């Protein structure tokens, strides 16, 4: 009888522990869900902030190349990149294949000639002209 009583106590203790542990798990799950929710929210915030930084640092602009609008996402554009925007391809050859100039550019680069091998900072609605000047 004594032994049974003892066993009975043991069983009660075990079931208590199981219940307690389950409660613990349930609690931790709630904690985890809350944490995950926070992480997700923070991640979304970070992504949004990074996008904002990117947009501020490298704004998507429209360049007017040979009188036609072209999307551009980099802070600068090179001679070769302008030629590709204008004609789709660029085959480097001897001499200046194109006369390239720009206007309505950002401060310090309002207008000028873009030399082969060089780049210039861009601004929305900046105008570029890319022309083979070989006819007479």
């Amino acid at each position, binding site marked *: 009888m004594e032994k049974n009583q003892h066993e009975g106590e043991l069983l009660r203790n075990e079931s208590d522990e199981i219940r307690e542990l389950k409660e613990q798990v349930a609690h931790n799950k709630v904690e985890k869900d809350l944490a995950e929710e926070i992480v997700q929210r923070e991640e979304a915030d970070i992504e949004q902030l990074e996008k904002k930084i990117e947009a501020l640092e490298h704004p998507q602009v429209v360049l007017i190349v*040979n*009188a*036609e609008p072209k999307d551009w996402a980099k802070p600068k554009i090179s001679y070769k990149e302008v030629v590709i925007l204008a*004609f789709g391809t660029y085959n480097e*050859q*001897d*001499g*200046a*294949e*194109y*006369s390239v*100039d720009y*206007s309505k550019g950002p401060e310090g680069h309002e*207008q*000028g*000639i873009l*030399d*082969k091998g060089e780049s210039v900072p861009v601004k929305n609605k900046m*105008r570029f*002209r890319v*022309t*083979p*000047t*070989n*006819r*007479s």
Partner: protein
Amino acid sequence: MSRRLIDHSSDLKRLQTEGYEVRIKEGFLLISSVPYLDRAGQLRHGVLACELTQQGSRAGAPSNHTIWWQGEYPCRRDGSQIGGLYNPTAGKDLFKGFAANHFFSARPSHPGAPATGYSNYYDKIITYIGIISAPALALYPGSTARTERVFPDEEENSPFIYPDTNSSRAEINVISDKLRGLRIAIVGLGGTGSYILDFVTKTLVAEIHLFDDDVFGQHNAFRAPGAASLMELDAKMKKVDYYHRIYSKMRTGIFAHDVRLSRDTFHTLTGFSFVFIAIDKGVLKKALFDFLTAQGTPFIDVGMGILRVGNALRGTLRVTTGTPEMNQHLIKRVSMIDNDGDDDYGTNIQIAEANALNAALAVLRWKKLFGFYIDPDSEYHSQFSLDEQIIFNADYPPSVC
């Protein structure tokens, strides 16, 4: 030439018949040996000079009432300056070898005088001699401007069939003179080359050599100066002969070379003061630039590009200068690609006014190099953008930038 002009002009002929020393030089009417008194009352002789308006082979009406004077300021017997002549304009070089010291202004007062002052050169000259010589004639009764001296026709060394009265009217002969005697080559007589010829024709250069082996075709007529007749097109003349015939109406020293430019014919471009390159053939250009640089010959390479955007055009006109001292920029400015026939962009669009403007920009640049126009920056490359009408300059010699 001046004798014929005097003979055909009743006012100039009358001056000569009355014994005045009449000469025509560089588009100016000169009357020499005009007596006057200096400040000390001494008898001296000066020269009157004024622009000579011409209408074909005879003198027209004077364009204004003023006159230039080579000599001291004419005085009265008491040594005071003759009033009624004075004009504050400073003296200047009218043409090489003739410096005027004073500028006089005396308007005729009689009713019915034209707004420009005098209706003919006889009235103008007689009026001025009357004012200038009166004190001298009173003090020295034997003195006279009527020396009856007749000058032989001087060899004017002018390339023109008739005098350049555009320069003499504007009194810029000393500036026009900076181009005198040059030997010019124009390589390529397409739209731009032919307009270059049109502009260079009107300068004092001694020789203009034309290099091209193409026939003057119907499409050329639409991007060439002047107007070709159907008969001229039917004649299928070489461009060099067509242009030689037209421009020889106005000047001497035009030479036609029916030559296709290649390495084998570069030697024909030896000994020129200046060369205009107006050809499409890019592959030849590097060697041509090297050849001219080695010869010590300065040159300008022109080129344009007109592109179609939807149903309108845009384009860029380029003028690139090379000299023996300054030529490193050429490789980054001039296309060396061969584009015989149609290139990647389908068509070869050229329009007369774009050709003419490209030619005018090239001729302006050439004249700057020879001191005709002020050249503060000495840009060796310019490109003109038709859409915004902006000219972009670049490539300055080290001494300037």
